[in-house]
């Protein structure tokens, strides 16, 4: 049981919805001073929404927040900061052109006198040095320009920022996802020294080994509910996964097995621009091939190189046994390749254009009249309507702008765009990121359908259960290189992670 004297934060019955999408349906969480409290849950379980409520980015719909046993209200980021909550996001909030000490004091600069006086660079520099040595860093780093630092050190600058705020609770959102091996070790020891000083840490991670290594307690979330809080040391990772997934993998991943056919897609000696490694793989008909690896392992870069979204340093690509020359995304589309990008909003959709336009975008030529070369708007509407029926896009109004749809429905619109190109090879990059469980299953079913109809399907995913649940073969990448090619029957979380970390 939690000792009430040590209890720093308690949230009770937090609820939050966005229009009709209930993201948090009643979350409880208790965090004690001096502990590392891990939040575990699948994408869409509600972790980041909960964090955003604690940091004041979102307002909760219902529930209570207690801080040091006092009921408090967090209405904006300043409230949260004043309580002593600091957050380190996956995307660091640093300004590369400024010096380290300037970053540490950004927005809370020390002045020589009153509010309108000049900046006190000397004190800022000295204080920054103090905090840096507290974090086991060279104090002279204070004068370095931030852009000269590696990711790990940049993260430490953010931690130093939290220290200047006298933060009592530090939230870290997948802090190790973009760090190298030695940087990760450095971070673990920093976390240990911080908790020794009594700071509480809420740690979000998908890496089970990491959680075992540094966690004290773990709270598992699923579909917007808190499932359970457990001590890390005395419970098994298998038990966590069970709680996290909540049902058998079969229902969640509607895997269908098809007859393995002949090779339909091959990549030979492809070099991603600036990478020393050559990449080789093939995909057969009847199988879904997954690409696993840590963030930054080079999977998206590989997909972009295939699609010529970025220039590559040579290599051959074969579709259905025939070599295709790809110098631009248009060439790739003409060769029958579709690339469903990782980031729907910034790379997939025209957010302020209607659904039918979005769906027709990659195949405008197909809607041209042969004689006049004018586009048949009526046919675009009809085709869009049929995709909306087929993929069950909600709401079904084709004149609605894409922005108005939920993540899952936006993803369906992007998929419709690529179906309309009549592609033979579908590269899905994190196809279910940020979409709800129901929509995920629909995406998986669609992949099955594509394979059944004779398409080649590749899926890049950082979601291990998804990779294990849906793929027949798993190619693992690490630091730009393919490090494993595992059959479904031999793949486990452990050997994938081992290959992903280059071990």
């Amino acid at each position, binding site marked *: 049981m939690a000792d009430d004297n040590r209890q720093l934060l308690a949230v009770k019955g937090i609820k939050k919805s966005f229009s009709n999408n209930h993201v948090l349906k009643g979350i409880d969480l208790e965090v004690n001073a001096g502990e590392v409290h891990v939040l575990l849950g699948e994408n869409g379980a509600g972790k980041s929404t909960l964090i955003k409520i604690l940091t004041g980015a979102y307002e909760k719909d219902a529930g209570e927040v207690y801080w040091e046993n006092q009921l408090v209200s967090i209405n904006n980021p300043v409230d949260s900061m004043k309580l002593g909550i600091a957050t380190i996001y996956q995307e660091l909030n640093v300004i590369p052109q400024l010096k380290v000490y300037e970053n540490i004091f950004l927005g809370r600069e020390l002045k020589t006198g009153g509010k309108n006086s000049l900046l006190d660079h000397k004190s800022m520099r000295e204080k920054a040095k103090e905090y840096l040595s507290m974090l086991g860093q060279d104090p002279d780093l204070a004068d370095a320009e931030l852009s000269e630092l590696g990711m790990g050190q940049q993260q430490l600058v953010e931690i130093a920022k939290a220290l200047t705020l006298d933060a009592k609770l530090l939230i870290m959102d997948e802090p190790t996802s973009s760090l190298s091996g030695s940087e990760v070790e450095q971070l673990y020891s920093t976390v240990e020294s911080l908790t020794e000083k009594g700071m509480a840490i809420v740690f979000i991670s998908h890496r089970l080994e990491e959680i075992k290594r540094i966690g004290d307690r773990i709270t598992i979330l699923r579909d917007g509910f808190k499932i359970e809080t457990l001590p890390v040391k005395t419970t098994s990772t298998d038990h966590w996964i069970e709680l996290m997934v909540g049902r058998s993998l079969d229902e969640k991943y509607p895997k269908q097995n098809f007859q393995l056919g002949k090779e339909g897609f091959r990549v030979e000696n492809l070099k991603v621009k600036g990478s020393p490694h050559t990449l080789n793989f093939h995909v057969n008909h009847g199988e879904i091939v997954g690409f696993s690896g840590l963030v930054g392992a080079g999977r998206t870069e590989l997909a972009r190189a295939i699609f010529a979204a970025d220039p590559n340093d040579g290599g051959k690509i074969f579709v259905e046994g025939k070599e295709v020359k790809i110098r*631009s*995304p248009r060439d790739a589309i003409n060769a029958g390749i579709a690339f469903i990008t990782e980031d729907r909003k910034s790379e997939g959709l*025209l957010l*302020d254009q209607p659904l039918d*336009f979005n769906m027709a975008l990659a195949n*405008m030529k197909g809607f041209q009249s042969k004689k006049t*070369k*004018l*586009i048949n708007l009526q046919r675009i509407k009809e085709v869009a309507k049929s995709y909306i029926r087929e993929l069950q896009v909600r709401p079904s109004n084709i004149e609605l702008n894409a922005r108005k749809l939920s993540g899952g429905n936006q993803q369906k619109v992007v998929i419709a765009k690529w179906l309309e190109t009549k592609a033979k090879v579908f590269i899905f990059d994190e196809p279910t990121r940020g979409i709800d469980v129901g929509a995920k299953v629909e995406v998986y079913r669609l992949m099955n359908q594509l394979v059944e109809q004779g398409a080649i399907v590749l899926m890049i995913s950082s979601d291990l259960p998804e990779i294990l649940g849906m793929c027949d073969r798993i190619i693992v990448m690490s630091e730009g290189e393919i490090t494993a090619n595992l059959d479904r029957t031999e793949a486990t979380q452990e050997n994938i992670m081992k290959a992903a970390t280059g071990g």
Partner: protein
Amino acid sequence: MSKAMVNETQAKTEIVEKKKNMRYYLDKFGAVIGLVVLSAILTFLSDRFLTLNNVMNIARQSSINALLGLGMLLPILTAGIDLSVGSILAISIMVMGVVVVNMGVPPILGILVCLAVGALFGWLNGIMLTKLRLPHPFISTLGTMNIARGLALIITAAAPIAGFPYLIQYLGREFVGPIPVSFVLVIVMYVIFHIFLTRTQTGRYIYAIGGNKEAAHLSGINVNRVLVIVYSISGFMAALAGLVMVGRVNSAFPLAGLSYELDAIAAVIIGGASFFGGVGTVWGTLIGAMIIAVLRNGLNLLNVSADFQMTVIGFVIIAAVYVDVLRQRRSKKD
């Protein structure tokens, strides 16, 4: 639920629906309503405003800006801008003046030269943006604005050129019945651009690039090619506006079209196009150009000085965009 309550909720939803409909029409025809209200006020204030003669006057006065605005719409739809149209107008007509008046080239060829020079400078804008990869069209077209203006001055050592043949003056000077030819040209160009933007592949790509350049690129669109076309068309339209101008004043002078780009941008923006790209229609731009022309004309009729006119137009630009901001904020809430 009792029957009365059912009726009540029904009535409520009807009101909500009506409000939504009203909003819809306000959103869609906001600029038109603005133009109508403005005209009504001016009709009330001056009995000379709503006469056939004056309306045709407005049509004629608006035509140069309407053509420049139509060209300007394209860069703005791609989230860009073209600051060089006023200068391109000047260099195009000066070159035409030199070849036609000074060198005696046939007028029809002169017209083609004029349009080609405009398109060429526009093309250069596009090349600088896409091949030299200048970071923003504000910069490339700012450069061209100065280069083209300078060349327009150099070419005749700043002297104006007069005495153009009738064929060249035709567009800016003649009438079809009561309607100025320049306004007929405006309507024809707007219809062509409407079809171009809504019904051709390149036209749709322009919206796609403005909406999301990266998504457009990954959907197989040759973004650079489309951008070069966009700026070439904008330059071409500047030269076309120049032809109308030469007809109007029967001369070409190097400072012609000075700061006209600003009125063209104003027409596009008042017409509801988004500065962030992807949103805007030719009809909105036409209404925008008409609002500016009606304002100028009306204020003239009311003997308001040119200085005041500028101030008023400034306020109209800000008001029009503010209404747009309010509308977008509201639509995000829905």
